[in-house]
């Protein structure tokens, strides 16, 4: 088991004829060839990219390939349309990698996704991976190892750093999800924690957060109430200056709210161990798992 994606995932790549789409389609394919079933590029149906059939629209792709998951690489001005198209065509899980989409576009697209009963991950995210089964993202597959830790993160390279630290200690991962660094994104801590809680393979969770918003505080309240598995958190931006955007559009302390300190306190109050560095995470996980026995 795992969450959201597995060996049965049938993935299409929207924007497959673009530079990034093409590159990552090949990488995802080399991770597990049977997962990626095709691609979409407007008016380019009939072409072939790396042996994959290209369709004019997601409708054609779903009909021909029975795709249930889509990953989006189209440029920001067209991303809203791409997300809505996927939802409208019956895709169940939509992963949007694209960075720099206007927030109002994301709000519109998310509403359609919700209406169609689909799920959205991202935008501005690295995607997700279930090690040895399915890579649906731009994560470097080689650093992951199959195991029982579920990871939820707002950041890309920081996730790799944490995974690297875990893998080195022999702690593999069930599924790793990058939720994205924008102010408005799809699936977030709460929904994903609930999925990991219900997943038999996942024994503990790592939550990687950063300054901005108060999703970590909400996650803390949710953990205290509904999560029985051990959770370790790591929050960055402890030394970030106020009112400055730290790379991610959503990483900003505004009017004194969204600080790392507030988040760390809320998580500690909820019984979550909070690490100061990536290398501390495996140690805290060990303690947690030992204590919970």
């Amino acid at each position, binding site marked *: 088991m795992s969450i959201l994606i597995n060996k049965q995932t049938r993935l299409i790549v929207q924007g497959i004829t673009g530079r990034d789409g093409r590159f990552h389609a090949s990488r995802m394919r080399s991770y597990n060839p049977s997962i990626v079933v095709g691609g979409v590029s407007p008016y380019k149906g009939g072409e072939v990219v790396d042996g994959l059939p290209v369709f004019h629209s997601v409708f054609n792709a779903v009909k021909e390939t029975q795709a249930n998951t889509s990953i989006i690489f189209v440029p920001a001005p067209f991303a809203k349309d791409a997300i809505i198209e996927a939802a409208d065509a019956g895709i169940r899980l939509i992963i949007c990698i694209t960075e720099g*989409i206007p927030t109002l576009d994301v*709000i519109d697209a998310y509403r359609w996704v919700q209406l169609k009963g689909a799920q959205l991950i991202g935008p501005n995210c690295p995607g997700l991976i279930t090690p040895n089964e399915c890579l649906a993202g731009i994560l470097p597959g080689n650093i992951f190892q199959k195991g029982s830790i579920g990871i939820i993160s707002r950041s890309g*390279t920081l996730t790799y750093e944490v995974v690297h630290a875990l893998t080195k200690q022999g702690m593999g991962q069930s599924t790793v999800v990058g939720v994205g660094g924008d102010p*408005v994104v799809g699936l977030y801590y709460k929904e994903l924690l609930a999925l990991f809680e219900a997943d038999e393979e996942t024994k503990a969770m790592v939550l990687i957060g950063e300054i901005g918003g108060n999703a970590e505080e909400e996650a803390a309240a949710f953990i205290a109430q509904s999560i029985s598995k051990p959770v370790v958190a790591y929050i960055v931006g402890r030394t970030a200056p106020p009112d400055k955007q730290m*790379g991610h559009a959503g990483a900003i302390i505004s009017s004194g709210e969204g600080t790392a300190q507030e988040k760390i306190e809320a998580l500690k109050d909820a019984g979550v161990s909070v690490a100061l560095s990536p*290398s501390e995470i495996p140690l805290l996980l060990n303690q947690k798992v030992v204590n919970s026995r």
Partner: protein
Amino acid sequence: MKLLEYQTKSFLKKQGIPTESYTLCRTPDEAEKAYTTLGKKQVMVKAQVLTGGRGKAGGIQKASSIEETRMQAEKLLRLSIRGLPVQELIVSEAVAIDAEFYVSFVIDRKQKSVLLVMSREGGMDIEQVARETPDRVLKFAIDPLLGIPDYLARYFITQCVEEPSLWASGAVLLQNLYRLFVKEDASLVEINPLVVTRQKQWLAIDGKMVLDDNARFRHIEHEALAHWTEQEKKEQEAKKKGFSYLSLDGNIGCVVNGAGLAMATLDRLTDFGGRPANFLDIGGSSHSKKVKEAMELLLRDTAIKGVFINIFGGITRCDDVAMGLLEAFKELNNEIPIVVRLTGTNEKEGKELLCGGPFLVVDEMDEAVKKIVNLVNKAG
């Protein structure tokens, strides 16, 4: 991007939302002229700066003669508010106020929608009102598929405003404000206070707007509204090269791939007694040219006494990063210590390339952080 009061009001007026009369001035002479043109006895002289707490800092003054207007303008134009020099001000008519309200539209992360925020406590710090008396702040999430049809506008306005003669005009005002928010791709449009005059008219006498930087591609005209500080100009320039850059006040230059890892790097440097000079995310998928450009950007800052390069190779290949570093230092003459931490894809190749160069290559992040902090602090 934040807008000044007069810029916000110009958007409000264009959208049919009434404001008091005002004139933008950059000199005391212009302020005098504005006083005459307004033709009112009582005026307000208001500093235009991109920071809150303007009133408390003395940035808003009353005047009731041409001499007094000049005097206040001279005073304000010499003032700095929270480090920002006052370069522009408005002279506006003083308004006789019957009631003050608060209204704004803002992005709500949790509900993933635009949120209408209203309160009868106008003219106050709304966050403080929300903290102390949450029941006095009304919030309504807007469904993007619906927007604000008439029935919702009527519902919202009657929830907040008691005076029946203000309902119809207030409902239209809410619709117009939402239209403005969407049309300009704002992330905040705020009127505070939205006042009711003695003549029972709505008037926006102070306002704030923040525009979504991600939507810049479809609002070329927004570019001209920017008031960048020197520091922000540098940040904007870096952005054009594909970097996220922020200047900080320390002495250790940082080059990192990924925003999260960059934040983690600053935290860790500070934990071990170092003082980062900047935040610099060169992007998740970087190549040698970008690394070289990043080094050039960094070393222009003379406060930098050491550089820490922290790269986790995912899509980014470590050997690519190493090539960029070698390129950069072929041309840059450099005496300061450089600690490089490379892990991940093609790590071995990258490290081999850096062998014999002016770099200290370290495997683990914490170890590397300690190293650079020691070297910089020792050098004094």
